[in-house]
């Protein structure tokens, strides 16, 4: 038997056994293993290896291991940064700081820039009056229907009802 051919075939036997070869090469291995006793024996040994593994009992623990695991599970702590603040708290803090900074920026820089830029656009009186009346009613209704007291009173104060028409 051609030794080179045997070497080539043996290199392919494991892949052949695992079904990884294309049809042409698989046919070549099959043909060679059928006519070469040594390569045929090698292929048979590979198949017996797979069968031995399949027949091997998996190792089994002698007892239920879960209780030993369960008693060591600490309640999950949120991950911490190097300065020790939990990440969720860190996010909340960052949001609060950003909000305060934006408010300060708006009050000190942006609002003054727009303060003295001519008369504000005002709605026609009739619309303005209707809006004020609606706001007043809404605030009073809210006061008796669950809107926070402070918010409702602020709304009443801010939306004085229009003077009654004579």
């Amino acid at each position, binding site marked *: 038997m051609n030794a080179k051919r045997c070497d080539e075939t043996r290199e392919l036997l494991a892949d052949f056994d695992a079904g990884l070869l294309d049809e042409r090469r698989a046919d070549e291995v099959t043909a060679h293993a059928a006519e070469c006793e040594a390569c045929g024996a090698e292929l048979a040994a590979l198949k017996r290896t797979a069968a031995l593994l399949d027949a091997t009992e998996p190792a089994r623990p002698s007892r239920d291991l879960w209780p030993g*695991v369960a008693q060591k599970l600490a309640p999950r702590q949120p991950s911490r940064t190097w300065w020790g603040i939990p990440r969720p708290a860190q996010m909340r803090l960052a949001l609060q700081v950003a909000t305060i900074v934006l408010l300060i920026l708006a009050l000190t820089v942006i609002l003054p820039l727009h303060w003295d830029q001519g008369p504000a656009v005002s709605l026609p009186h009739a619309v303005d009056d209707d809006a004020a009346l609606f706001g007043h009613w809404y605030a009073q209704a809210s006061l008796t229907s669950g809107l926070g007291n402070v918010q409702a009173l602020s709304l009443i104060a801010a939306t004085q009802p229009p003077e009654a028409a004579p």
Partner: protein
Amino acid sequence: MKPPDSTAVVGRAKAGDVQAFEALFRDHHARVYNLAYSILADRTEAEDVTQRAFVKAWEELPRLREVAAFAGWLNRIAANLARDVARSRAARKVPANHSEPTGDKADQGLLAEERDAQVHRAIGSLPEHQREVVIMYHLQGVPVQEVAEQLGIAQGTVLSRLARGREALRRKLAPYVEQ
């Protein structure tokens, strides 16, 4: 073998649900134990490593990004812990607590037990990526497709690792497979 919607269970465990983590333990502990046993060849040490692997997994789970690859990630934790124990044992020159086969025992049950122990030791000597697929496919009967899904690798990769693993085991287990 793969539980339905195991990714969701991993997600719940990741969020701190102990019951979900227990479900993961029930699904995966046999494989983890076999991995540890293959490396250590000692049942008591393998049990200890299995428990420590799950405790460590619980602690590290919030940092696991690919929940679909939970099984492979857990395997690596267990294998690392088992190797640490094996190294520590070697440094102390303590032999593994197993009996070597004598070959002259009449009891077939004992012979089979010895043969299985040899197979486990041979599996334990494989590279990790081959060992985990051999254990899952051959010892636990997980189909190739599910092995691939649980480890987050292609089916072709599973087959290739199985081929290389069996090739190595064929030589290590020559007395059992040669006629």
